[in-house]
C-alpha cells in the first residue's frame, strides 16, 4: 500500500511537472511554432506527418529535450486535425489518415453545410486528442504487460476485427454486403503486389522495379478519392457548394460543435477505438479512421438512418475525426515505453528523441517521467490551441466551397499530383495516381464501394505477414491461444452486430404493428 501510495504521489508530481515543463516560455514558443507548421502541413495534401517530422529533425539537434518534444509533437499532433479541413472542403484527403472524413464531410460541404462539418470535425478532433493524451498519461504505468502479451496471432486477430468492419462499410442489403466484400477482396489482391513478406518472391511486379515494394498508399488514396470528386465538380460546372449563397456556409460551425457533444459517447467510443488501434504496430490512423467510421455507421438505429451515411451524416464526420487524433496519444505508448514505434511517424519521432539524447524504455518511465507526461500535455494543449484558432477562420475556410469550379479544379489537380509525388518524385507515383483516379471513377460509376477496397488494401499485406509469422512460430496451435479466441469472439460480435440490430428492429416493428 505504501509503495502504491508513493507511486501515485510520484505520478501526480510528474504529471504536474510535465505541465510546468511545457509551460516554460521557450517550450511553449517551440510548441506554437510546431503548431503553425503542422497547421499548413495538415491542410496541404501529400506532405504527410512523417515527411514533416523528417524534414524538421535537423532543427532539433540544438534544442533542449523539452523544446524539441514540444516542437515535434506540437506539429505532429495537429496535422490530423487540419488534414480533416481539406477532406471536408475539397474531398481531397489532407492526410492519408483523413480519408474517411470525406465520406460524409464532403457531401455536407456540397449541401452548404461546410461550417457545420468543420465545426464537428474540429471539435471531435479536440475531444479525440484529449482522450488520447489521457490514455497516454493513464496507460504509462499499466501498459507494459498488455502490449507484451500480444504476439503475432493476436495481431492477426486484431486485423481480422478490422476486416469485419468491411460489412459495415458496404452498401445496404445482402447485395450491398456482397459487393462490399468483393471490393474488399480486390483491395486485398492489390495489396499482394510486390515482394512476398515471407519468402521474398516477387508477385505481380511485371519486372518493374517500382512495384518491388508494392503499390504506395498515398497516390492510390488520392487517385481513388480526389479524382472522382474533381470529375464530378467538372460535370456539375458549379462550385463545390453548388449555387448556394456564400453567407450561410460558415454559420453552422457552432451547430457542428454542439453535434459533437450531442453524440458525445460516440465521440468518446471512436476516440477509444483510435487509441486501441493506435497501440498496434503498423495499423495506425489509416485503419482507425475506417474502423471508427464503420462504428459510427453501426450506431445508426434504423436502416433509414444508416442510409444517410455517405450522404452527409454528421456522425460520419465525428467518428473519424475523433479517432484520427486519439491514436496519436496511444501511438506514443509503445514508442516511449519500449522504443517500438507504432507507425512511420512515430519511428521518425523516436529518431528525434534519440537525437536529443532520450532513450525510450524504463528511463522514460522513471527518471524522465515528467518529460513523458509533458508529451501527453503537448498533444492536448496543441489541439486546444489549434482547434479554436481554426474555428475563428471557419467562415473564410467555408467560403472556399463557393469558389468557381473552373478556378478550383486545376488547383486541386495540381495538389493531387504534388501530393502523390510527395518527396520521392517518382513518375511511377503519378502513373499510380492517374490509374487509381480512373479506377476510382469507375468504382463510383458502377457502384463498387471504395472504403472496403481501401480497408482490404491497407490490411491485406499485414494480415498475410502476421499469418505467416504465426504459422512459422506456433504452427497451427496459435488458434488455441486465449487471446486469439477472445479477439475472434470480438470479431464475430462485430460482424454479426448489424444483423442482430436489424433483426431486433424488425422484431420491434412487428411488435408495434401487432
Amino acid at each position: 500500500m505504501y509503495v502504491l501510495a508513493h507511486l501515485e504521489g510520484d505520478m501526480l508530481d510528474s504529471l504536474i511537472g510535465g505541465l510546468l515543463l511545457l509551460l516554460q516560455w521557450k517550450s511553449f514558443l517551440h510548441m506554437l511554432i510546431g503548431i503553425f507548421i503542422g497547421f499548413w502541413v495538415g491542410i496541404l495534401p501529400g506532405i504527410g506527418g512523417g515527411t514533416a517530422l523528417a524534414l524538421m529533425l535537423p532543427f532539433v539537434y540544438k534544442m533542449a529535450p523539452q523544446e524539441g518534444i514540444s516542437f515535434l509533437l506540437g506539429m505532429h499532433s495537429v496535422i490530423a486535425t487540419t488534414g480533416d479541413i481539406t477532406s471536408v472542403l475539397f474531398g481531397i484527403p489532407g492526410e492519408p489518415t483523413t480519408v474517411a472524413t470525406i465520406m460524409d464531410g464532403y457531401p455536407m460541404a456540397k449541401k452548404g453545410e461546410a461550417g457545420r462539418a468543420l465545426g464537428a470535425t474540429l471539435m471531435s478532433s479536440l475531444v479525440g486528442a484529449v482522450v488520447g493524451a489521457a490514455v497516454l498519461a493513464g496507460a504509462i504505468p499499466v501498459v507494459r504487460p498488455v502490449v507484451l502479451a500480444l504476439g503475432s496471432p493476436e495481431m492477426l486477430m486484431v486485423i481480422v476485427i478490422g476486416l469485419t468492419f468491411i460489412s459495415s462499410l458496404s452498401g445496404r442489403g445482402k447485395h450491398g454486403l456482397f459487393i462490399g466484400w468483393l471490393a474488399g477482396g480486390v483491395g486485398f489482391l492489390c495489396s499482394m503486389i510486390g515482394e512476398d513478406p515471407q519468402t521474398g518472391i516477387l508477385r505481380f511486379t511485371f519486372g518493374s522495379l517500382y512495384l518491388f515494394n508494392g503499390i504506395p498508399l498515398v497516390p492510390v488514396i488520392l487517385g481513388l478519392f480526389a479524382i472522382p470528386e474533381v470529375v464530378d465538380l467538372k460535370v456539375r460546372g458549379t462550385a463545390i457548394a453548388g449555387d448556394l449563397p456564400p453567407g450561410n456556409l460558415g454559420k453552422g460551425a457552432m451547430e457542428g460543435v454542439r453535434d459533437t457533444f450531442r453524440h458525445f459517447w460516440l465521440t468518446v467510443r471512436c476516440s477509444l477505438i483510435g487509441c486501441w488501434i493506435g497501440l498496434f504496430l503498423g495499423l495506425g490512423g489509416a485503419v482507425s479512421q475506417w474502423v471508427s467510421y464503420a462504428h459510427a455507421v453501426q450506431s445508426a438505429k434504423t436502416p433509414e438512418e444508416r442510409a444517410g451515411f455517405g450522404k452527409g451524416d454528421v456522425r460520419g464526420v465525428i467518428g473519424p475525426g475523433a479517432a484520427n487524433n486519439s491514436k496519436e496519444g496511444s501511438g506514443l505508448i509503445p514508442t516511449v515505453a519500449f522504443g517500438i514505434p507504432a507507425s512511420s511517424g512515430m519511428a521518425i519521432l523516436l529518431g528525434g528523441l534519440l537525437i536529443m539524447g532520450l532513450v525510450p524504455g524504463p528511463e522514460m518511465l522513471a527518471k524522465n517521467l515528467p518529460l513523458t507526461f509533458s508529451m501527453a500535455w503537448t498533444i492536448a494543449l496543441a489541439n486546444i490551441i489549434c482547434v479554436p484558432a481554426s474555428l475563428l477562420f471557419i467562415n473564410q475556410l467555408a467560403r472556399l466551397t463557393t469558389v468557381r469550379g473552373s478556378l478550383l479544379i486545376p488547383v486541386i489537380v495540381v495538389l493531387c499530383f504534388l501530393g502523390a509525388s510527395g518527396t520521392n518524385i517518382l513518375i511511377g507515383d503519378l502513373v499510380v495516381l492517374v490509374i487509381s483516379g480512373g479506377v476510382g471513377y469507375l468504382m463510383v460509376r458502377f457502384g463498387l464501394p471504395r472504403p472496403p477496397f481501401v480497408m482490404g488494401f491497407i490490411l491485406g499485406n499485414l494480415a498475410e505477414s502476421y499469418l505467416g509469422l504465426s504459422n512459422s512460430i506456433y504452427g497451427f496451435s496459435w488458434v488455441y491461444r486465449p487471446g486469439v479466441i477472445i479477439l475472434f469472439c470480438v470479431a464475430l460480435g462485430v460482424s454479426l452486430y448489424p444483423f442482430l440490430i436489424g433483426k431486433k428492429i424488425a422484431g420491434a416493428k412487428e411488435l408495434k404493428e401487432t
Partner: protein
Amino acid sequence: MRCSGKAVMCFCLLLIALGVVLSALQWPIKTAVFPIGIGSIIFVMAMIELLFTLMDKEKGIEEKDVMDFKLSRSIDPALARQRTISIFLWIIGFFFMILFLGMPVALPLFLFLYIKVSGKEGWKISLGLTAGVWICFYFLFMQFLKIQFRAGWLQDRLRMFIS
C-alpha cells in the same frame, strides 16, 4: 441479357482474379496460398455479380444505396460524358506535361491553360492565379523543402543535344 459497363467491369475483375490464381500456381505454397485463396474467392464473386448483372436481376444497383460518394445525376448524360472525357484528358495531359517538361514548368503551364481555355476566365485571373500558385509551389517545395524535381524528358534530350 444486358451488357452494361458494370458487366464489363465484373468481367475484367473475373479475368484479373483468374490471372492471379494461374500466376500463383507456379509459386511455392507459402507465397501462393494467399493469392490463390483470395483470387479464387474474387473469381467466384465476380462471376456471380456478372451473372446478376447480365440477367438483369439487380437492375440499377448503381442507383441503390451504396455507402459511397455518388456522381451527380442532374446533368444531361451527353454533356456529363463530354465533360468527364474532357477532365480526364486534362489530367492525362498534365501527367504528360510533367513527363516531358518537368513539374516546375508543367505546373504553371497546366494551370494557365486550364483556367484560360477550359475555364474561359479572363487574362487577369488566369495569370494571377497561375502566378500565385507557382510562387507558393516555388517557395514551399523548392526553396523551403528543397525538393529536387526531375527535369522533363524534353529538357534531358535538349541538354544531351547541346552537350
